[in-house]
């Protein structure tokens, strides 16, 4: 079985690395943001930074669904799970995300809340069917990639007339977040973050296509290269970005043509449009309230909306003041700029969401890359 090895070939990686080194102007520096946590993980997991010249820097973006969920939403989920009639189904990563006052779903589960770890929306549906006496709520999170499966689950639940299945919807949209970063004072006025180009999302783009990025490339004059999540994809995308910068181009290029079409996946988009509508605004950790960046169920599917069925209130909760997750998610700070990093905040005892998911910038650097900090300190 050949599987994915051809996208992880060390020989090809070295050849690409040599190209990048050759073509990057030594008198210039290049700052590229990889939006997706999937890319952040690949960069750390395969040590891609080691293969790039010093003047090509990667900035981690906010594209980690677990990381961008604000504390208030975690608190709301915990409150929901504590209701005796509710069984809350969630992806494993969310279990450890800290809520207010040191709470988490994991601790709520240990204290007796009925919380189940699931691998997909269909698992949650199955539980709802098997346990009709329980109110089964699926904690729906994620970008455009995970939204179609949730939409499908709603449609199945409607067809089966399931009365005990709802979702706590936290689906968010990538283009709104990228726009928010590019319009933020950090980037525009203060110049605290220099972004010369974006590595565009892999899986998200398979759904939404490459067209939505044309706006950024044109309006903000930033090149975008959509790339797959394998390490060679990332290397090649970096080379393509370097070339665009050198040529003074701001195009949307598609490195991930084996999966991404310009128009995306029409069927999945139609499925989502049938079930969901835009929220006026949605809170992101780090970015604050971002207009038209989140989804909720349409009125016709209101009976599957946990927020409506359980009259859930919006909970406003402050991040730990010392935690730099917000600035890290905006690309303003690096994990090592945070005083908590590696001291009180580690994957075992995360203080902020970026230390929880393997796609989070802090967890990725702690788990895979922190030896470089010591190498740097020693030299």
């Amino acid at each position, binding site marked *: *079985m050949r*599987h*994915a090895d051809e996208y*992880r*070939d*060390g020989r090809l*990686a*070295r050849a690409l*690395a040599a190209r990048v080194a050759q073509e990057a102007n030594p008198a210039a520096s290049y700052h590229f943001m990889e939006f997706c946590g999937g890319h952040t993980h690949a960069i*750390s*997991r*395969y*040590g*891609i*930074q*080691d*293969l790039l010249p010093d003047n090509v820097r990667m900035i981690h973006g906010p594209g980690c669904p677990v990381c961008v969920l604000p504390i208030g939403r975690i608190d709301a989920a915990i409150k929901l799970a504590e209701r005796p009639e509710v069984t809350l189904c969630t992806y*494993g990563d969310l*279990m*450890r995300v800290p809520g207010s006052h040191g709470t988490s779903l994991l601790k709520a589960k240990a204290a007796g809340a009925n919380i189940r770890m*699931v*691998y997909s929306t269909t*698992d949650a549906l*199955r539980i709802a069917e098997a346990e009709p006496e329980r109110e089964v709520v699926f904690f729906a999170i994620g970008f455009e990639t995970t939204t179609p499966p949730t939409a499908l689950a709603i449609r199945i639940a409607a067809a089966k007339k399931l009365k005990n299945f709802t979702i706590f919807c936290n689906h968010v949209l990538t283009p709104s977040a990228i726009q928010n970063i590019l319009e933020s004072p950090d980037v525009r006025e203060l110049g605290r973050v220099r972004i010369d180009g974006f590595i565009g999302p892999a899986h998200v783009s398979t759904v939404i296509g490459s067209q939505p990025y044309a706006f950024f490339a044109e309006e903000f004059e930033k090149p975008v290269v959509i790339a797959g999540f394998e*390490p*060679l994809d990332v290397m090649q995308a970096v080379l393509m970005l370097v070339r665009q910068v050198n040529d003074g181009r701001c195009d949307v290029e598609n490195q991930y043509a084996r999966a991404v079409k310009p128009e995306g996946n029409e069927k999945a988009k139609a499925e989502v449009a049938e079930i969901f509508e835009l929220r006026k605004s949605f809170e992101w950790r780090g970015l604050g309230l971002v207009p038209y960046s989140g989804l909720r169920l349409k009125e016709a599917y209101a009976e599957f909306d946990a927020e409506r069925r359980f009259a859930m209130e919006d909970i406003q909760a402050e991040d730990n003041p010392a935690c730099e997750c917000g600035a890290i998610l905006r690309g303003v700070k690096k994990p090592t700029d945070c005083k908590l990093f590696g001291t009180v905040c*580690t*994957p*075992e005892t995360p203080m902020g969401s970026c230390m929880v998911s393997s796609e989070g910038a802090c967890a990725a650097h*702690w*788990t*895979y*890359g*922190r*030896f*470089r900090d*010591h190498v740097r300190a020693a030299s």
Partner: protein
Amino acid sequence: MTVKTYKRKLDFKNGRVDLSHGSGGRAMTQLIADIFHEALDNAWLRRGNDQSAFDVIGGRMVMTTDGYVVSPIFFPGGDIGSLAVHGTINDVAMAGAQPIYLAAGFIIEEGFALADLKRVADSMGEAARSAGVPIITGDTKVVERGKADGVFITTTGVGVVPDGLDLSSEKARPGDKVILSGTIGDHGVAVMSKRQNLTFETTIVSDSAALHQLVAAMVEADGPALRVMRDPTRGGLAATLNELAHQSKVGFRFSEDALPIKPEVAAACDLLGLDPLYVANEGKLVAIVAPEAAEDILAAMQAHPFGRDAAIIGEAVADDHHFVQMTTSFGGGRIVDWLSGEQLPRIC
């Protein structure tokens, strides 16, 4: 007048363990006799005592105990019974010792099918016989439905350390070679493939095996050169190397290219978002050995069926941070850290 008592046979077709099987009465005696004594039969058990006496052998002995709660109970390549024998034999063997006796404790949930219990006991008996390590005493408890999950097994093992050996976790030193006895991740992926909400088609089977004969071959090749051995079960190779790094106050460096891993295991891990370095093994060992003896020990391992794919994967280095570092196949460097949280609950 003597009344001939009629004893109803255990119903292996439809019967289930009920609370009377744990009550200390006839039902319990029958359960133990007809399932456990039948399956594990040996001279010690036949005497029917609550303990077994055995002669003490001169020299140093090792003793270990381990609980088994794997879910599902039956998985490709093994079951909780064979696992409970292999796992404890391996913990004894990792001291360089030859295991001689086992003890087994069972916690059974009310309602557990007698047929399944027999299957587990038979599998234990078979594993113990083929390893040549008898189970000489045991205990059975039954708990109410919902207080356990089918059956939990605890096994205890004792073994004898050959003269001149003193393996211990603090003994790795810079320059020592790290030998891995074979492919990683097989057990965890095999168990995972049968999880209720995750069933996927695969030909992967658990590597569950007793490694004491492999260890005997290594001891014969160059026992004194063995610094420390460990079986990378829960937490996988990553956890084992991190534990040893901290206990020995060294770092480890190894190369991803040197790791033996089956392509189908790598593919399944990719699919499930797992890193094979963290996935449990039940028939593999990691040996830290003196560099000058590494090739001889490796050759002895490769000559044994359970060490056929053995490889030198890296070495211990001086490192105050005790980092385990890997050069990826891609060419970059990374840390192989402890696992945080549970990657796969109840894998053994």
